[in-house]
């Protein structure tokens, strides 16, 4: 065998064993990021907004019913309210976190949020189809309205997607309707 082949084989087997180690140590599938709860640049609380103040998710994530991405709202959306509300909740003390929004606008630098939910690039998930079919945000994202710091509540694996789609189709068939949740590969992969 050539030197290169030996080295390549060694390298590949090392990488494979590492992979096996990762899967078994974590005890979960690759791509399952549930429990991921990074520190965000602004200590923003979904509990305060969506929980206490009962704001609709789509007030900010307006892409959710219109397009593929729910999307992190632009700072201008935050400022719809926070142009006025600048203090910490129920105090007269200015909030350092809200001030970060104003600074972002002043500096012309977008806020560098840490992304939590991520699908591989060969998966195409369309938020609008799910939201418009009445799937609650919480079905995939958990009880976000109760989270001070957002974490990934559920695994976004293909198994999870298919389990739900199959369940919906079973329900549809049981009630005499046409099953409408696709399970074809090309529903998500293209």
């Amino acid at each position, binding site marked *: 065998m050539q030197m*290169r082949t030996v*080295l390549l084989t060694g*390298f590949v087997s*090392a*990488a494979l064993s*590492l*992979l096996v*180690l*990762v899967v078994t*140590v*974590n005890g979960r599938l*690759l*791509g*399952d*990021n549930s429990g*991921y709860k*990074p520190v965000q640049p602004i200590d923003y609380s979904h509990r305060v907004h969506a929980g206490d103040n009962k704001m609709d998710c789509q007030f900010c994530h*307006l*892409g959710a*019913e*219109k*397009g*593929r*991405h729910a*999307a*992190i*709202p*632009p*700072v*201008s*959306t935050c400022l719809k309210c926070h142009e006025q509300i600048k203090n910490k909740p129920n105090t007269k003390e200015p909030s350092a976190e809200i001030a970060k929004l104003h600074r*972002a*606008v002043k500096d*012309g*630098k*977008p*806020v*560098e*949020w*840490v*992304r939590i939910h*991520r699908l*591989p*690039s*060969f998966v*195409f998930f*369309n938020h*609008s*189809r799910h939201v*418009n*079919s009445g799937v609650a945000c919480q079905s995939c994202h958990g009880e976000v309205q109760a989270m001070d710091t957002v974490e990934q509540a559920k695994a976004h694996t293909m198994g999870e997607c298919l389990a739900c789609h199959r369940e919906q189709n079973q329900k549809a068939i049981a009630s005499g309707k*046409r099953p409408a949740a*696709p399970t*074809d*590969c*090309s*529903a998500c*992969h*293209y």
Partner: protein
Amino acid sequence: MRFWKSIHSKKTPNQRQDEFPEELPVGEPKVGEAVRHLSRRDFFRWSGLGFAVSLATGCDTKKSEKALALLQGQEGQVPGTDLWYSTTCPGCSAGCGAVAKVRDGRPIKLEGNPEDSLSHGGLCPVGQAQVRSLYDGGRLRTPIMADHEAHWADLDRDLVSRFADTKGGNVRVLSGSLGPSQRRAVQAFLGGFKDGKHVTYDALSQSALAEAYERTHGQRLVPAYQLAKADLIVAVEADFLGSWLNPAGFGREYASRRNADAHMSRHIQVESVMTLAGSNADERIRVAPSEAAAFLEHLCSAIEGGTPIRVLDANGKKKAHEIAEALKEHQGRCLVLCGMNDVHAQIFTARLNKALGNEGNTVELARPSLQKQGDDAAVRALIAEMAAGQVDALVVLGANPAYELSAFGFKEAYAKVKLRVALSTMPDETAFASTHVAPDHHGLEAWRDAEPVKGRYRVSQPLLNPLFGTRDASESLLLWAGAPTTAQAWVKSTFALFTSGKTVGFASWDELLQKGGVDLDLPASAPIYKEDRSRTQSEWAALKAESAEYELRLYAKGGIQEGRDAFNPWLQELPDPITKITWDNYAQLSPATAERMKLAQGDVVRLKAKGLADLVLPVVIQPGLHDKAVGVALGYGRTHAGKHGTGVGGDAYPWLGADRHALEVSPTPQKVELACTQDHHNMEGRELVREFALAGYLKDPASARPIDGGVGSPVQPSMYTPHPKGPHHWAMVIDLSKCSGCSSCVIACQAENNIPVVGKDEVRRKREMHWMRIDRYYTGNEQDPQVVHQPLMCQQCDNAPCENVCPVVATVHSEEGLNQQVYNRCVGTRYCANNCPYKTRRFNWFNYDHEDVVERLVLNPDVTVRSRGVMEKCSFCIQRIQLSKATAKNEGRELKDGELKTACQQSCPGMAIVFGDLLDPNSDVAKALSDPKRYQVLGELGVAPAVNYLSKIRNVESAAPASGGHHA
């Protein structure tokens, strides 16, 4: 065997080609001729780093990734959704109306605007490729002064003072054909000088056409031809479907009359090389390049009377008389086209159209085309002036004369001009020869307008902020003229001037932008025929008949055209519609000539002519070429065309000019392998294209029904259980009578589906990645064959042979009849490709280059970028299917037929492709399936393809040479 694909396949019909003749390649792909090596040391370096990184990060799958949202949201913009803006295609002077798909602030797809009254929704390959040109990483990014990058302020200061010094001198602007706003800007600029003049030229000049009308009708103009009104089209050396004037618009009009069931038009092509238009003709007559004008003279004489001065051979005379008789039968409903830049040929054509009563019917003179405004005489005068040192400053706008006008001696004369300013988008030959370069926006970044036909005003709006430090050419000119304004305001004021005192039909500027243009019904009168016949006659008689053993015929390819987009790798890798060769130009010879000279395909020859540097090119043996003709494409051999276009092919521009027909062809010992996509698609003599004569078809349409494998054929029992059926079944019908082979669909598919460019070397290894190809078949004898074009993509078989050989179930059937390719499952065994009877699957031999941060902006985010080791193929634009279904469901309605179009279907100027849901009995595709001409390629295999074809119908009397339906 009746149909054949190349000389090679005709001579060795049963030779099979191994699709994968080589071992798995290791390394990097070579795109263009650039090679990157990975040394052993680098391999260790990178693998060590990779191992360390995987150790460091492998245990934690929660990699931190930033997500940046906008600071200021925009009204109506939802991330990940498309916004469509109307604009005008910046590809050429045809000014086709277009709509651009803008995703998150960047245009990623250009499509024809169906509401445009000129292009009617088609777009040519050059138009489709404009998005790639926009994102070219090699574009000019900053101004250049004295060979160094400069700041705009410095450049402006320097130029303003230099122009001030030449106020009393001679200042010239040399440009291609421009839109109204840019013309106005040039006038405004030149107004500041004592002697300022604007000279226009076209690289693919039709100056003689305009000059002919000046001499016959007293007005310099290019007529607007109405192909849809013509029952009989006679085109002489005019490739109106590939490169002449307005191919997309002509393509739509032409195809609208190629319907066998509704008063089909007849098309006769008289030409020396095989052009795209010629390949579609019902009858094709070969003439030598020097005989074409004489042929027109003979037509004239046969119709108007009189004795022709030039002599034609017996066959030519006979054909001229036959055509003349046919033309007389179609007075007022026929059309004679001539693409030669030869004033006498054009005068004969103008006379013919006059005598046949076509003026005002198929030849519109009152509202002429404004596409080709170039004036060769003015260009010659300008260059003489420059050479004599009489020009103080020359500004070049939107053109590349240093390359395109080499036959006129532009470059040498240019060096004698003291102040040379280029307003270019690319660092091209002219930019390199200039003292000052003021980089211009790409057409998709700019406010522009166009008036391709008198009274039809088209506007372009910028689709994104300029990517680089460029400035609009109009803004530059106006700034230097001391009247700075924005390009937007300038275009707006042009529109106001254009419409002042006229009824526009709608209210606002915004509405104009939304529509992309407006057609004004300008009062106009056609010029009257008043030719000085004796002058023409004496001039024509004085011209010597210049027949020679070999005669050069320069032509333009539908993709590369005049060569301005030579840096665009999509267009370089687009197979020529006729020769199927990529990344090259070559000397075309007829089979008889090649045999006589003992030359084979790929042998390098030297073309010689007095006073010209030799042109060294490989030989391509082209059936249908006249035996005297040597066909060479323009637009190649560029010295400054970026990393993809530089040095590709040989430069034929120095040979341009009607007086240089005769040449000498001498063989050299060299031989090259051309990057051809042809022979490996050999179909082994089976009946894949079907062709019938119109007369026979009209007598008995049922005669076109296929014998087996099509409608009415018995369904073969299957050993498999049928696939479960969903709410849709997608299918396609392609009408071979309407497909001209223009290859617009190939580039549209490339843009839509992130198809990589593989480079010349990889095409040679038959590893091109195009999901759709256009097969070209010849019928008849190889000296004078007829041609059929057949677009072929994945046939989405219901019993797909690829599916049951995949060991990892990476290609599976969907309940909507699609043959799905799942990239993330594919492990690259290539069994599927080996088992595909259509050879439409493509394998990623490499990770193709998407690394350039600018160039990757063209990628469609709705389609996965495939990586090495993965199989791919046409998906019926599944991303478009999914989006349309989602939109309809979100709106709570059923999907409407026609609302969903695949990229190839949308781009097709001929509307040859129909796509839709088979389960909807009222859909166009379901109706097309009951057409008696319908058949399936290799239907006899029982694979049940979802793509169907309608047999080609040629408008000929007798069944010969194409008897249709049966093997010889």
